[in-house]
């Protein structure tokens, strides 16, 4: 077993031969952060007494949810057989929505630790990321974590991993991030098994951005992996996709606190600070080069983040609109994938249509807005982007049902995804049923081990953005996992269903659905609203319609009694206070025509029964 390194290799003067760049591929709660913490401790970059659980996850939400949204890179010294090595651990985002960021993190590494919970086995997202790593020719070190758990089944899952990546189950390392068992062996193995980075030190500088983070004090901190040449402080650099140039105010490595260095050479991983204030000026996947001696070709793999899911965000209290606007502006500084534009809803007032990479991205953003900016928000049902071609060949992109053209539609195309679902084989039937009910087409099915299967489906994105994952979880008693990636589009028979209260269309409840599902949506939503909207002083018809054709109707009977029979022995104060309370309640109503709709009804109508209770505050 290796000791802690006596001398750490110096950044900017490190031979690529003693550099090892790796990431950890793991599912959300499989213990990646705990393992990373243990590595920081054993390599001596963090003293035990300073150890905060899950050191690398900086945001509260991340720490609470146990997931990593933003990655970081940490340089750790480790000595094997008398040689000090520099290990760069690149922490990858752990969720399906951030596939592109994951792919860039992987591209910055020569190897990956495949970390799997010894009690749960591999999950769909981990599998997807593993395939991504294998496509990138990364060396994989399979590791089972949490072997200290009584429920651990290391033999079973070692075999599963060996089947997936080839090799012997006995080669699968067994560690416990919690107790530290096996961690030093893993560090040794990283040094021994992973190839050293290769690059041309004399070529013009090329460094790939794999993350950029906005810091209130320092502006944007850009994380890079140098491929060729060298970057130095004070020189001017250029972003190859945008041609934007900046001065390198600071360059350094995280260990794990930022430590300025004299530069970064071939194979090194570190950070750049240029003073820019917007992460959009430092795009993940872009190539950084030296302005004075620029590279002719950027590194491969750059792509713009593309929002896939759209939702309207509205403040419950209309006067909070400016707060929401400022909050989105601030979040955007740190989230290159977030796009938004102002939107008005007759029912919900002023808000924003916001584009997200996926549902988790939506949830996290919403939660941050509510928590960090003390906002109460209504979010409309998530939508995908439809491409609607009119008969006059005009093409409209629709991200909000209210933008759906009323004119003659020639064709509608909807985005598709290819989805991978992993689950114990007893749930195959239930999963197929679910996917088929969501217009899925099966692509294939494989056994990962004796009793676990990988099922592949091609599905419309619209069918999985709302409640698919929650239903999958409940149908597989929590064992099913899902990964998806964009997979083109297809023509679909879609219609817009409108919901009307007393003849007034309520834009917030409109939906674009498959024609066959329009009726079910209409019945569901009218029925839901009938339960949620309190009786008014008049009868309120609730209708669902496609165009002018009514497909479902309900009605809320008029309230007949709203009077306190008695004033108790002259206690007028009590009666007045009741009235004041009722009037306060009335203020919290949204008016749809003459119908008073409580905020709660909007929230409840836009929430699925299946989705878990997102305990608010």
């Amino acid at each position, binding site marked *: 077993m290796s000791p802690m390194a006596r001398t750490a290799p110096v950044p900017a003067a490190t031979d690529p031969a003693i550099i090892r760049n790796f990431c950890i591929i793991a599912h959300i709660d499989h213990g990646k952060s705990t393992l990373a913490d243990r590595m920081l401790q054993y390599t001596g970059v963090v003293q035990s007494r300073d150890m905060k659980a899950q050191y690398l996850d900086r945001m509260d939400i991340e720490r609470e949810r146990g997931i990593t949204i933003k990655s970081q890179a940490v340089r750790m010294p480790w000595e094997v057989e008398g040689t000090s090595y520099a290990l760069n651990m690149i922490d990858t985002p752990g969720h399906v929505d951030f596939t592109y960021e994951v792919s860039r993190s992987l591209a910055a590494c020569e190897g990956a630790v495949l970390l799997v919970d010894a009690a749960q086995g591999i999950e769909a997202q981990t599998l997807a990321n593993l395939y991504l790593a294998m496509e990138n020719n990364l060396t994989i070190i399979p590791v089972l974590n949490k072997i200290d758990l009584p429920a651990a089944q290391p033999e079973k899952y070692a075999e599963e991993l060996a089947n997936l990546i080839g090799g012997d189950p006995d080669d699968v390392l067994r560690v416990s991030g919690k107790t530290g068992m096996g961690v030093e062996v893993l560090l040794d193995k990283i040094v021994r098994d992973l190839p050293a980075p290769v690059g041309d030190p004399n070529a013009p500088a090329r460094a790939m951005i794999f993350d950029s983070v906005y810091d209130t004090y320092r502006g944007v901190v850009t994380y890079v992996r140098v491929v060729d040449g060298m970057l130095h402080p004070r020189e001017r650099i250029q972003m190859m996709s945008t041609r934007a140039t900046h001065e390198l105010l600071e360059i350094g490595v995280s260990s794990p606190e930022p430590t300025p260095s004299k530069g970064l050479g071939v194979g090194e991983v570190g950070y750049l600070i240029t003073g820019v204030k917007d992460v959009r000026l430092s795009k993940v996947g872009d190539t950084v080069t030296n302005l004075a001696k620029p590279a002719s070709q950027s590194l491969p793999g750059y792509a713009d983040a593309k929002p896939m899911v759209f939702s309207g965000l509205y403040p419950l209290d209309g006067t909070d609109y400016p707060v929401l606007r400022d909050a989105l502006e601030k979040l955007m500084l740190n989230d290159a994938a977030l796009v938004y534009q102002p939107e008005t809803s007759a029912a919900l007032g002023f808000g924003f249509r916001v584009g997200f990479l996926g549902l988790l991205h939506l949830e996290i953003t919403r939660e941050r807005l509510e928590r960090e900016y003390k906002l109460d928000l209504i979010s409309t049902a998530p939508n995908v982007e439809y491409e609607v071609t009119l008969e006059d060949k005009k093409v409209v992109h629709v991200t909000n049902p209210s933008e759906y053209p009323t004119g003659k539609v020639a064709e509608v195309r909807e985005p598709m995804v290819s989805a991978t679902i992993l689950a114990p084989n007893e749930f195959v039937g239930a999963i197929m049923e679910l996917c088929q009910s969501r217009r899925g087409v099966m692509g294939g099915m494989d056994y990962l081990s004796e009793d676990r299967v990988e099922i592949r489906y091609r599905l419309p994105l619209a069918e999985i953005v709302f409640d698919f994952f929650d239903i999958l979880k409940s149908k597989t008693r929590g064992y099913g996992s899902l990964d998806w990636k964009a997979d083109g589009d297809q023509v679909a028979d879609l219609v817009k269903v409108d919901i009307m209260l007393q003849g007034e269309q309520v834009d917030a409840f409109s939906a674009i659905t498959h024609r066959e599902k329009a009726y079910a949506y209409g019945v569901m939503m009218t029925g839901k609203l009938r339960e949620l909207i309190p009786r008014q*002083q008049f009868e309120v018809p609730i209708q669902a319609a496609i165009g002018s054709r009514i497909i479902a109707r309900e009605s809320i009977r008029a309230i*007949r009694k709203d*009077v306190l029979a008695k004033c108790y022995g002259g*206690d007028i104060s009590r009666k007045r206070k009741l009235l004041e309370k009722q009037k306060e309640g*009335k203020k919290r109503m949204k008016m749809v025509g003459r119908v008073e709709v409580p905020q709660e009804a909007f929230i409840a109508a836009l929430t699925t029964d299946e989705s878990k209770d997102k305990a608010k505050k």
Partner: protein
Amino acid sequence: MPSVLPLGDPAPSDGLLPPQAADGAADRAFGLYVHIPFCAVRCGYCDFNTYTATELGGGASQDAYASTAISEVRLAAEVLKTSGLPDRRMSTVFFGGGTPTLLPAEDLARILGAAIEVWGLEPGAEVTTEANPDSVTPESLQLLADAGFTRVSFGMQSAVPHVLKVLDRTHTPSRVPQVVRWAREAGLAVSLDLIYGTPGESLADWRYSLETALSYEPDHISAYALIVEDGTKLAAQIRRGEVPGIDDDDHADKYELADQLIGEAGLSWYEVSNWARTPEQACRHNLAYWRGDDWWGIGPGAHSHVGGVRWWNVKHPTAYAGRLSGGVSPAAGRETLDAETRNVERVMLEARLSSGLDVSGLGTSGQHAVAGLIADGLVDPVSAFRGRLVLTLKGRLLADAVVRRILPD
């Protein structure tokens, strides 16, 4: 009155009123309410400030109550004088509870006598006591009439045994005609109190109760929808599913039936829950509440109002007796209403009356709302045209909603 007191400002220990209370007092009627906080049993639906004999002792006992109440009467007269209010005779007096007739008639007479001694009665004043059909005799009713009472309001509630049982009322229905006759023989006007919407009461049950009550030819009827108050036995029974809950539509059906049958019997509504055979037989004390007149409430938990100052006494009879025996005002808290709040109260209260609300006092947005209320059939168009907002039958059932619509946001 309810067992929970409102939140307000602290009341001073001498009970003195702020100067505004005296403004225009000479033009307002003055009334007296006397709360008798005793019942033989506590009814399952009741959350009023009342106690059974076994719940109380010491200075708060039934025996000592009349003397304690009289000491508040005397304190009240002093406070009003010291606060600069003019001498006014009582226009109305109302003994409520609890069950006033659980006290010996002599005690009620003694309290009334003390009040007459300090304030005097207006000629033709209305003096009412509530009474339980169980707790009166021809002799006690005669004694009350002789002492100056003019009117008795019997808590009949229902004529149907199974309904009375859910309400925990102990009297047998057949006693009601008897006590009505005795009251008339003593020269007292008679009102009957009914409750509708009791769990398990059918529409036919309610019709039977109404027809039975009307067959006794009362001068006045009050019909109150049963309210299930938190903390009552009835609320717990409904929560546990032992008796069915309250249904507003059922209440509406029963109110409409009441209005129809009572109307056919020759009585007219003058307030949402009250009907009188002639305008003179309307309960003037009740009207004083809705019209914002002045009254002093005697007794634990009693509410008072003088010139925009509302206050309420400490709730428990023992605390109440203790305060008075120490010469301290029993007022627990009070609020002094500003002009805007007084206007809100005026709209809230007067809208309930058949005499209606002055439309011109409503302000622009309120006047604007009237057209919509007429369109929805809640307000009588002819009266509105003449400047009074008077509720229709449908409007009476939705009176609180109407008030919310005419008050500014």
